[in-house]
């Protein structure tokens, strides 16, 4: 079933067992993003040590795709530099824009490659991007405070 390409096991696993969920008491920047069309929302805290992303924590509610995506993203980007994160974010954004034509770069995206199937479902792309757009915003805000 085509649905299985959307709901990869790793996605459902992260949905049921979200990582880095629960907001850190301190942060370099905090952002809140919503998908106005469906009501999904997340709050993301970023902590920077120099250019290193030392901690990403979040809280939110939404569908399996949006929640698993932010869970996998926080796993993936914690411990990376801002430059490395920018490359991963670009790779993920390109994959989402590919309409199912790109297999994605697994070396860069690691577990986030599971979202390759999402790009075939136009209605779900914004779900998978919610956390990543929040990260982009948070990174800019944290840097501007430096």
């Amino acid at each position, binding site marked *: 079933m085509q649905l299985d390409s959307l*709901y990869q096991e790793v996605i459902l696993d992260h949905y049921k067992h979200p990582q880095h969920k629960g907001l850190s008491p301190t942060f370099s920047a905090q952002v809140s993003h919503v998908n106005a069309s469906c009501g999904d929302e997340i709050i993301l805290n970023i902590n920077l040590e120099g250019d290193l992303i030392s901690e990403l924590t979040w809280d939110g509610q939404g569908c399996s795709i949006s929640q698993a995506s932010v869970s996998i993203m926080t796993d993936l980007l914690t411990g990376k530099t801002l430059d490395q994160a920018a490359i991963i974010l670009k790779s993920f954004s390109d994959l989402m824009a590919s309409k199912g034509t790109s297999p994605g770069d697994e070396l860069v995206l690691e577990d986030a490659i599971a979202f390759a199937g999402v790009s075939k479902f136009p209605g779900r792309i914004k779900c998978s991007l919610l956390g990543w757009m929040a990260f982009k915003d948070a990174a800019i805000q944290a840097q501007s405070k430096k």
Partner: protein
Amino acid sequence: MSFSPALIRQDFPIFERTVREGKKLVYLDSGATSQKPHSVIEAESGFYKLHNAAVHRGAHQLAEEATDAYENARLIVANFLNAPGGSDEIIFTKNATESLNLLAYSMGNAKNTNRFALKTGDRIVVSEMEHHANLIPWQQLCARTGAELAWFSVTPEGRLDLSAIDSVITANTKVVALTHQSNVLGTIIPLEAIVARAHAVGAVVVLDACQSVPHMPVDVAALDIDFLSFSGHKTLGPTGIGVLWGRKNLLDELPPFLYGGSMIEYVTMTDATWAPAPAKFEAGVPNMAQAVGLGAALNYLSKIGMENIHTHELALTGYLLEGMRGIADLKLVGPTDTHSRGGAISFMVQDIHPHDLGQYLDSQGVAVRTGHHCAWPLAKALNVPASTRASLYLYNDESDCDALLDGIVGAKKYFGRL
């Protein structure tokens, strides 16, 4: 003729196609927009093929025919709603959202001596179950004029809480704007007490009838309301056409919203006066083919009979509610019986997010809507951030309900696999 959804479906070409790898289309999203019968599609394209010209202008035969067709559609709407003042009370807009904005902006344009003028101390009343289209125009009108927005709350059962009606609709209330049937809960509100109280304090009653006009007989004279809006596209009609009905004496006093061609009586370089309603509110060349299509849609509905349609949908709602009671972990958002209720049925299935449930149902050919359904304050009040909504119409039958129920059970299995 007995009511037959199977025969009715034959009038709708979209049901000839399949979805998602050959699945039968089970369309349970008519609350968002309805499908269109042949007669509507043909009326709209027929206007373009045979009669296309700008209405109310042009010294030629096509202009005459176009004007006739457009004005005939207005008469059909007037008769459909039983407008006491006839077709002069029918204003064509692009949809119900525009109808409500037209009303709110027009009131905002009212000068001090006009009955619609709003100031600090005045009040506009809505409810917590409003669609954004009947909330935000009033909320923002209040912000522009200094008037205060007040609202009826919603009970945990999804009914309007009228226990404090006299302290909600106060003596200084100028407008009471309410949804006739909630697009989320399916609740049909009790109008009699509300209209009586509103009129006792001199307020006008505005009814957002988007979810009622397509599904049951709505008689504006019998309801004793003052304004009503609905959308053509939810009523088997084309997109791009909506209706604002208003009492003639009120439309006469209401200032215009959009200015331009067709809506004037006399113009100089420094001033202008207005044509009488409905022209006063229809600036520019209107959506003519769509109005004609809406006329065909209302004729189609009238031929089947709005009472028959309502009876059918009520029976189907009862059937679906009964089936849902048999599914563990399914929680309805809204009344659990068919009393004062229409066929918009929202629900949650524990542990499956509505967007995921909707995606699974789609894989089975079942089209539903998910999310907050453009009623975010209601979602927050009921602590239901998102839900799944099935909405029924005349072309649905028990097999559609069964497909939904089977789909919900299938989704529970699918997402329960970890």
